[in-house]
């Protein structure tokens, strides 16, 4: 197990060395969304007695947990293609499980950091949310699932450019269509059916329900737990693909 911790610790040391830059970078998007969507639309949009900012911030939490967990793929690729440090792990007695677990938990840690920033910014904008057990359970499952997916993708891509393409085709559409900015039940049934395939839609639903003090639904948690298992297993098998 020390190998898994070594992988995790390495990512945390890198995060520590660029902590201020990382915090600043993680703050930009949620701050802009809160200013532009939240404040500009706040007075004109009311969703069943909930202000748009109260609706938006749980969505931003879900989105931040996805994007920052997935961003571990970039760090892995910098180590793999730029510093070639990934070879160090390949040549060391590190099992695939240890490598994937270490990197996944590093992605999850990044995600938790970015969520803390979103919540602090929301607090500064005057939004008070209910942060109960199901809120954190959904965050952890969502972050773990997308960090695992990130590790899998980072192992399968052949270059930095490929990684950028994956983010553009998977993460960006999901960020906008996964129930972050608008309620999915306002869409036509066929569109809802498609968007309900996305794990982020379920994460948004589960996180928002608890944040607004509503009772939890089972299905989002089942879907997120399933995504964790599928993506983590995929990541373990993908590690072998990174060898030539």
């Amino acid at each position, binding site marked *: 197990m020390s*190998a898994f911790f070594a992988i995790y*610790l390495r990512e945390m040391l*890198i995060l520590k060395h660029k902590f201020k830059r990382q915090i600043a970078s993680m703050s930009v998007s949620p701050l802009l969304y809160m200013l532009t969507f939240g404040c500009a639309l706040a007075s004109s949009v009311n969703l069943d007695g909930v202000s748009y900012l109260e609706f938006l911030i749980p969505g931003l939490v879900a989105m931040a947990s996805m994007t920052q967990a997935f961003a571990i793929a970039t760090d892995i690729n910098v180590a793999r293609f730029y510093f*070639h440090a990934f*070879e*160090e792990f390949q040549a060391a007695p*590190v099992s695939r499980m240890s490598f994937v677990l270490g990197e996944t938990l590093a992605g999850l840690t990044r995600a938790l950091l970015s969520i803390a920033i979103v919540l602090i910014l929301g607090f500064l904008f005057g939004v008070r949310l209910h942060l109960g057990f199901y809120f954190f359970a959904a965050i952890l499952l969502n972050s773990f699932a997308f960090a695992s997916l990130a590790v899998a993708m980072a192992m399968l891509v052949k270059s930095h450019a490929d990684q950028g393409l994956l983010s553009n085709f998977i993460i960006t559409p999901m960020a906008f269509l996964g129930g972050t900015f608008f309620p999915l039940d306002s869409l036509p049934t066929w569109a809802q059916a498609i968007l309900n395939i996305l794990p982020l839609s379920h994460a948004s639903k589960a996180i928002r329900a608890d944040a607004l003090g509503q009772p939890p639904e089972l299905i989002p948690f089942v879907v997120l737990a399933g995504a964790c298992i599928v993506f983590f297993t995929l990541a373990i098998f993908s590690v072998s693909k990174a060898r*030539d």
Partner: protein
Amino acid sequence: MIELQHIKKAFGKTVALDDLSLSVPKGELFAFLGPNGAGKTTTIRILNGLSYLDSGKAFIAGVDILKNPLDAKRLCGMVAQHTNLDGELTVMENLDIHGRLFGMSKKDRLDSSLELLEYVEMADRRQSFVKTLSGGLKRRLMIARALIHKPQLLFLDEPTVGLDASIRRRIWSLIKKINQAGVTIFLTTHYIEEAEFLADRVAFILEGKLRETGVPSDIMARLGYWAVDTFENGDMHTGFFPDREAAGDYIQSLKGGGTLRRVNLEDAFVTLTGKRVK
């Protein structure tokens, strides 16, 4: 210490290793010599678990690298051809992470790191970020890192490539010292003088095939001890002679003269393969 049996490896239609078999005994400093693309790095990558082999068997200290890859890796240290340090971490952090990957205790990691940094004369740089180090210092740090878990076998893939002559000599001294401490060394290089200076035994590889294996002095002695280079019609020709007198007589018989020198491994490689090493 190393046993390769009929190893084959291809990348698409390009054959990288073609039925390669060789054995390296414990404690030996073995040099694998060949031009770029000959298959040297592929061999090291297979032995370190960075590449798959298509067929054949490979053992490190009797451990099958396919059946027990983690056990085999515990016995090995590796210095890659290109820098593969973590540039965003400090020197000590790089060593500490490596020690953790090999399951070392906190005390062993610290003691070994400090000892090795003294060994490679980098004790004053332990808190420096790796990205601020020169090429020579990075290379020395990579050697220290590869030794931290006290491997029985050290792979050095072109350890001095891109370094200037004085740093290269320092690295050579370091490699000799490591080998004298009992570590088996498997070295790849395309620097002839490096193999001549360092190796107990060399192997020539070309286009994935092993062409010759032996003690450098024995391989060279098959050609003679002295060589005379001459230029005729724009081409270089080399003649080999058993002694200096015979070589001198040959030069005097030439109209345009020639250059007298000792026979080297490059001569042996060219004679055996028809190709130059570099």
